[in-house]
């Protein structure tokens, strides 16, 4: 009641304010800085062609038919080329689970946006590597 309770309220408010001012912001300066994604993040895939045996279990497991396999295209003895269609992929993780030869993994890369729809179909050249061309905008590079 009265003076002291008002003082208490003001103290509460100031405490809250000061704490917020010196806290690290919740947001990120996105294209230049990104949050650390957990290890299990189901982002885009990476295909290790050395281990692949062209068994096509990932293709059969996919519920949305986002994976296409080309068994003719061989880089090693018995591997195959995979085409991932990220316009369809729902990142459910069934293909990675189905792979028994450690040839397919999710990566914590989730910013997949492209300027062209066709670029979202990741062919064997893009799906086997995590490198990508850096984007430049007004002289600043990000990604």
């Amino acid at each position: 009641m009265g003076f002291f309770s008002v003082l208490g309220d003001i103290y509460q408010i100031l405490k809250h304010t000061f704490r917020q001012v010196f806290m690290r912001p919740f947001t990120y300066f996105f294209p230049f800085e990104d949050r650390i994604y957990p290890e299990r993040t189901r982002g885009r895939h990476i295909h290790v062609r050395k281990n692949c045996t062209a068994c096509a279990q990932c293709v059969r497991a996919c519920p949305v038919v986002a994976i296409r396999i080309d068994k003719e295209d061989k880089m090693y003895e018995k591997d195959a080329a995979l085409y991932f269609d990220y316009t369809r992929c729902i990142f459910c993780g069934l293909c990675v689970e189905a792979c028994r030869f450690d040839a397919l993994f999710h990566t914590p890369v989730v910013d997949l946006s492209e300027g062209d729809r066709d670029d979202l179909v990741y062919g064997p050249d893009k799906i086997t590597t995590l490198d990508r061309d850096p984007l430049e905008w007004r002289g600043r590079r990000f990604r």
Partner: protein
Amino acid sequence: MSESTGITASTLARQIINRHPQVSSRPLGTNEIELVVPSDKIRGVVTMIDENVHDALPESIFGIDLENDKYELIYIFWSHSNRMLVQLRVSLEGERPEIDSTCDIFPGFEWHERETREMFGIEFKNHPDPRLLLLPDELEGVFPLRKRFQTDQSRLDETGIAPPKARPKTGGDDE
């Protein structure tokens, strides 16, 4: 809430079979029972459930397409105070089978009946509001959940492996 004492699934089944001898029963589990009801007796049975089970919860109505113009309707009721599940099974036949609507007894069934009508083509007689529930107008009379309604499987050809065997077609006016 205190208007009646508990009733078990078998007691309810016996009461219903006494009134409607054409109904047969089959236990499903502990205090869960299935009643096979002829389609002309459905209103009588649902009314009896309403009268004898004071807290009957109308869970759902749905159809099953058994192909060759045979359909089944399942009605599911749950009673909390008796921990009792009652499942009614009605067999229907014909191109556009008909059954009496029960949504004046349990209003909660109104939308389930509307959905079954648009998805399976089962007519509910005396339904107060037989509009389409979920489908757009251009799909009226197509009945998408019937087995003869074929969906587009062309995506499977793109995978590069042999597609799984398609469901056998059983005539009908599929597109």
